[in-house]
């Protein structure tokens, strides 16, 4: 019953218990898409400090990280204040032996795998708390993975606005067209979170996402 009313109020875009400043925007996606790099880029640009640690080894983020009161300003001077939620990458398989191959010791690899599985579960549980989601994809990789389709399909079913961020456009193999073709019903914005390339386009789209 509670879920029904919550969904109804969301559809009517009316929630008497929440203020605009309590918006939660989540960064979701598969591991190593660049969610934490994007979170850092946003925080450096608007708060002057980093938010999360990043690594080329998958599952670096294994806990939900929340940065409260991030305020963006657009060219017209309009402000957008929200809580930024950086989530662990969602995967369907986690093998500690993959971490061994990246030079980790067995104990460390097993610990990382265990934490990564818990991280995926937490990411899924937190979906309910999100007001809008940026799905961060690596634009050099094939977007037709079931994890991507499942995340986006589930957000759609929950009526959560979605923006697809095609990250790593600085790389030669980057191909935004493939991502646009895979998810034609969604706005796709390309950028490089690492180098800040086209990041202004991303901020513009973020304003449109939650307006």
């Amino acid at each position: 019953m509670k879920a029904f009313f919550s969904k109804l109020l969301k559809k009517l875009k009316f929630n008497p218990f929440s203020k605009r400043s309590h918006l939660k925007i989540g960064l979701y996606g598969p591991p190593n898409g660049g969610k934490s790099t994007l979170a850092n880029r946003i925080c450096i640009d608007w708060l002057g400090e980093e938010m999360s640690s990043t690594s080329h080894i998958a599952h670096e983020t294994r806990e939900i990280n929340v940065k409260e009161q991030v305020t963006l300003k657009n060219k017209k001077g309009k402000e957008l204040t929200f809580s930024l939620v950086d989530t662990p990458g969602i995967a369907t398989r986690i093998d500690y032996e993959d971490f061994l191959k990246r030079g980790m010791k067995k104990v460390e690899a097993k610990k990382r795998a265990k934490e990564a599985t818990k991280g995926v579960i937490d990411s899924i549980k937190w979906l309910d708390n999100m007001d809008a989601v940026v799905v961060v994809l690596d634009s050099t990789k094939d977007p037709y993975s079931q994890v991507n389709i499942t995340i986006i399909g589930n957000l759609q079913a929950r009526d959560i606005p979605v923006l697809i961020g095609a990250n790593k456009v600085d790389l030669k193999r980057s191909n935004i067209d493939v991502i646009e073709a895979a998810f034609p019903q969604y706005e796709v914005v390309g950028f490089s979170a690492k180098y800040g390339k086209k990041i202004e386009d991303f901020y513009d789209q973020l304003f449109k996402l939650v307006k």
Partner: protein
Amino acid sequence: MVTFQFVPYHDMENLSSAKRVNKLLKIVKDERIVLMEGRLKKQEEVDLIEITMEEISPKFKGIELSVIYPDKSKQDPLQKIKGVFANVLLGDRTGMTIIGPASVVKKIEQNPDKIELFTKESRSTKRYRKKRK
């Protein structure tokens, strides 16, 4: 050897969401690849990932999952009406779900026209191709 197990729609239609997910996961944990007629509900797909993560162990390393589903936007109005009637009478059997254990299936690559299933069974990678209708 790779074993595929077909799960027909009528085996799943009367089960609760939890039982559906558990049934599929049980097959996968027996190192068989599921070929299920139709698809899970969106929430069930997420539940499948969540329960898979809860059951990860040194023996069970997860799953590879893929769903083939026709693009209904390309159907003409008559096909859409037929589809609606068929769904009402027979249930939504459209599409096919493939779930394999990560210990057997290296990856499943999917694009709109085909899926490619790469197994870990032999040294040379095997490919099974299924053309979409």
